[in-house]
């Protein structure tokens, strides 16, 4: 499934606490072209609700969420 998604950039945000995951992902997404995908790894439990909220507000799209043990992987498509 995941190999269908072509990832342009991987962000390791594990261990970071609020607000750093959203701050870093908002910076990181600007480093790829519109239409490309950023894969962000976070261990912040708040991210499960925060990333969708961030994506909705910033106008980007989470195409897939992959939750493993304590790490959540978000695949975010840059739309703006």
């Amino acid at each position, binding site marked *: 499934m995941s190999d269908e998604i072509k990832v342009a950039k991987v962000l390791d945000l594990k261990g970071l*606490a609020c*607000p*750093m995951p959203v*701050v870093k*992902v*908002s910076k990181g997404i600007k480093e790829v072209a519109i239409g490309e995908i950023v894969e962000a790894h976070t261990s912040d439990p708040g991210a499960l609700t925060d990333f969708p909220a961030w994506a909705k507000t*910033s*106008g980007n799209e989470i195409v897939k969420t992959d939750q493993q043990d304590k790490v959540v992987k978000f695949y975010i498509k840059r739309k703006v």
Partner: protein
Amino acid sequence: MDAIETQLAELKSQIDALKAGAPENKLAMVVFSGDMDKVLAAFVIATGAVAMGMDVVMFFTFWGTPVLRDKNKSVGGKDMMGQMFGAMLPKGPDQVKLSKMNMGGMGTAMMKSLMKKKNVSSLEEMLALAEELGVRIFVCEMSMDLMGFKHEEMIKYKHLGFAGVATFLQEAQTSKVQLFI
């Protein structure tokens, strides 16, 4: 035909007026508190807001003012009250205390070490991040004057200014979100 054109022009000017009055995607925040926990919350919201694509402007007033003093700067020429306030109030983000459980500084020290352990940014780090993200900060001129602080003793921060209540209200009026902390 003429009537329609006048109506159109009228509508256009009304839309322009609406646009001018519409709030921007901006957060205006008053930081009244000088407590470490509350100021930290203010910066978490401020930097988070930038991540959400908002412009952010913070107004530091009253007890929030000494948070922005530079601990390495000292200025002379203060009157007695100014010297007293200067000595009694915290000097910079490193010296502010928790609003609860300070316990003579022990609680604050414990909280700081816990924050480090849990990878929560310190107030100094948040301030540096806010500067990098372009968060604008205004310091209340009246509080500065009241407590005898001088511009030269404040921290070096790229987007720092000094202002009064009208500046805050003007920013608040054009902001989607306003907070008082």
